[in-house]
């Protein structure tokens, strides 16, 4: 008689099943589904307590996806483009929460560009994943503000306006981890997500995530085949979590370790260019150069592990404000008497 195989568990003793959500209702083959799968794997492998995660999203196909991962986490699917405000409020209420925002390019770069920029400016500690397909999927394929100039719609119409590069915006105005990846690049996306989990400030990850229904045709610059042809990885990435032995095999090539806040390491191996992800100025020029060359740079564009977060700046108590007892939040009778006396 053979014993039932013991299920694989992570360092918290949880199975990967504990990180799944309900069944996706997005189109088969949608890039967003792959991203959901990577989120499940990474939160499982990193041993993140799902009950301490709060998921946030706006409106769109992408913004629906938080229902499809981390079912043990609370989620808030808010209004179109205004997820940053909801997330900011919730994270101020409970600073122990691990904030995970998922949004679309329409949600972030059009209706939500203002809130996005201010989230960036505050370096609000959370993970902010933009599932970028260059179109509004949910409203059936209109161009979004990240669609490249000249990229064509299914109807053949070409986009006439230049795109916002959400990475460039995040980089320039204060996000402390900025990365671009591709929903089809399983390993890189995993590494980037894990790095984001280990990061203490705002991590903005722009993931090219093709919409198979409205933007995967020839002439689109956000199709699977276009990205496969034009993706230009900055480096090869590995992630060594703090709970694993760091001295594991180092292969050929030049290696650089970036030490994350929680003690994990982002291990960067040079491919064919010198790239220092801790230099913001160089990151900016690399993005500009890539735009001129028609390349899609992927990898960790920028990481800054020392900048204080918005929550640190507010000098709040360590305990969540949400559950402070009355004795901490209602001043004494004497305090009221003081306040009254000076108004007499």
């Amino acid at each position, binding site marked *: 008689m053979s014993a039932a195989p013991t299920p694989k568990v992570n360092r918290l003793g949880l199975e990967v099943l*504990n990180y799944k959500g309900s069944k996706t209702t997005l189109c088969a083959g949608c890039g967003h589904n792959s991203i959901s799968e990577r989120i499940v794997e990474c939160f499982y492998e990193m041993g993140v*307590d799902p*009950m*301490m995660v*709060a998921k*946030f999203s706006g409106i769109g196909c992408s913004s629906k996806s*938080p*229902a499809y991962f981390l*079912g*043990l*986490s*609370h*989620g*808030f*699917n*808010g*209004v179109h483009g*205004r997820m*940053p*405000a*909801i*997330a*900011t*409020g*919730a*994270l*101020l*209420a*409970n600073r*122990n*929460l691990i904030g995970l925002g998922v949004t679309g390019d329409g949600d972030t770069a059009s209706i939500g560009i*203002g*809130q996005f920029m*201010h989230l960036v400016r505050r370096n609000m500690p959370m993970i902010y994943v933009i599932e970028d397909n260059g179109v509004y999927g949910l409203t059936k394929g209109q161009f979004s503000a990240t669609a490249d100039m000249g990229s064509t719609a299914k109807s053949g119409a070409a986009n006439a306006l230049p795109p916002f590069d959400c990475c460039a915006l995040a980089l320039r105005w204060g996000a402390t981890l900025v990365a671009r990846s591709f929903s089809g690049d399983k390993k890189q996306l995993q590494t980037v997500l894990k790095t984001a989990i280990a990061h203490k400030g705002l991590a903005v990850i722009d993931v090219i995530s093709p919409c198979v229904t409205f933007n995967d045709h020839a002439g689109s610059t956000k199709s699977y085949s276009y990205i496969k042809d034009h993706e230009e990885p900055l480096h090869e990435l590995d992630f060594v979590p703090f709970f694993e032995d760091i001295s594991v095999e180092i292969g050929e090539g030049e290696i650089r370790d970036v030490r994350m806040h929680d003690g994990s390491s982002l291990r960067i191996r040079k491919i064919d260019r010198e790239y220092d992800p801790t230099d913001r100025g160089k990151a900016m020029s690399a993005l500009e150069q890539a735009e001129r060359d028609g390349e899609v740079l992927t990898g960790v564009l920028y990481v800054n592990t020392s900048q204080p977060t918005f929550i640190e700046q*507010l*000098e*709040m*108590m*360590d305990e*969540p*404000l*949400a*559950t*402070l007892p*009355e004795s*901490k*939040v*209602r*001043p004494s*009778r004497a*305090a*009221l008497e003081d*306040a*009254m006396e000076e*108004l*007499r």
Partner: protein
Amino acid sequence: MSTLEVSPAEPLSGNSRHSITNDFSIQVATANGSGSQTANTVLMRSIFQMGIPVSGKNMFPSNISGLPTWFTIRASKKGYIGRRKEIDILVAMNPETAREDVMKLGSGAAVVYDEPLKLNELRGDLHFYPVPFDKLVAAVCPEAKLRKLVKNMLYDGVLAKLLSIEMDEVRQALVKQFGQKKAKAAELNWNAAQAGYEFAEKNLLKTDPYRVERMNATAGKIIIDGNSACALGAMFAGVTVVAWYPITPSSTLVESLAVYLKRFRMDPETGKATYAVVQAEDELASIGMALGAGWAGARSMTATSGPGISLMSEFIGLGYYAEAPAVIYNVERVGPATGLPTRTQQGDLLTTAILSHGDTQHPMYFPCSPEECFTMSSEAFDLAERFQTPVFVMTDLDLGMNNWMADPFPYPEKPIDRGKVLTAEDIERLGGFARYRDVDGDGVGYRTLPGTRHPSAAYFTRGSGHNDKAQYSEREDDYINNLDRLSHKFDVMRSHVAAPEIHLREKAEIGFIAIGTSDYAVRESCDQLETEHGIPASYFRVRAYPFNDQLKDFIRRHSRVYVVDQNRDAQLLSLMRLELDAELIAKLRSVRYYGGLPLDARTVTDEVVKQEGK
């Protein structure tokens, strides 16, 4: 009412034969940015310190410098502190408006004016007191740069002499105003006040009848603006997350709150803040933050005014439908659009009651005084968490930004009510929960907070259709059940929100219904109607929405009921129409004022007398 005709039977020179004590209004006309605030506050305070009920109202323009500003002070031995339409004493400092201001006065008023303006040439039926302000200020303030700032204190001195305000009280009010730290500024101002007093003593012969005499009607009372009172209310209600975007007239609410929080809400053990205040990028963000914080368990709030309310509309619908608590202070100003940003109105009632698309309903509190700003704040935060919904505290510019005499605030005795929140232990015991199921019959489900460590604690909050387990649903029955439960929940609130204040007068055929700052005018008008016209009137002050059932009884009891609205479209009356039977609606009549100034009793009385056909 103003007239240029002078009655020869009443010469205005020489000592007046009668005197009017502790019952007059002063209007100070200056230009914005001329530093008159100190002088006006000190003047008001001095009268207050002499024990006389007093109110001060600032009518200021929406700019920083140069446009006309009027400050009116009313002293009333009977305790009427609403605005009085008639001006008894004018202090004319602004050359641009001086002529018009003088022409508007009723016969027999007194005018203190800047001598070069030669206002005495305009009319013969007023008491004129010329004062050479520039000459006097030069003598007491060698530094030319500061003269503009202390010049106004001269009229405080002049008025002290003319009205018999005790100079000791002026001095004490000055010290209060400047505090110990700015002793030099206080001294400079004191010198100016004294110079004004001495000038008046030597050069002005009092001919008007107005005077102040010490009373004992303000002992123990405080002076505070409604915004600061709301701030104190929120702080003692235990607010933890505040998100806001500046807009007149609500900005000072949060600014004052931030100062109080810093002083009273730093944790004594760790020295860390027990709160977070965020100046958001706009009102879309401030309400979003407040709702996100409320969802995660904070006592959260924002404060705004008309344009901000309009912007918040989409999020408020989310708060209603997803059932997240937050308190929104709406300090109303004159709309539509930018409107008159520095004038007062109750113009957002209808908008707020059903803010956002689809079927929505929101509770509102209507404080009428600083005391109620304070006490209703705690009630609003409790209601928001108990009923898991956005709750509005509706004040207006008059209440929010003007200084009011008030009773000191009572310490909140009721423990904070955090509503139906399940902990991990609760969930363990219950074996799970359905977020939107009406277990208790009050329409309110149980919620969990993110970060609750139990595998069955999480639920997914969304603004799209959902069933009682918070699962996505587009089913007709799920949708209808949900909306009906929300409607029932709103009904249950009727008996939880603040009860009305009812004054029944014997044999009254008519009644008043009013909210908020209309209170002062209505109460005074009740007296005017009774004493001047023999019409007794009852009064029902609505203190919250949804309306309490007593409203119907009140209307039934009276033949005609005047609903007082500080807006053009009779919004309070319209709200009643939405739920009252035709037979009761038929009894309602409308008294409306929407000119942007605080409502005064005379306007109300005149309108009622007209409609009563008397």
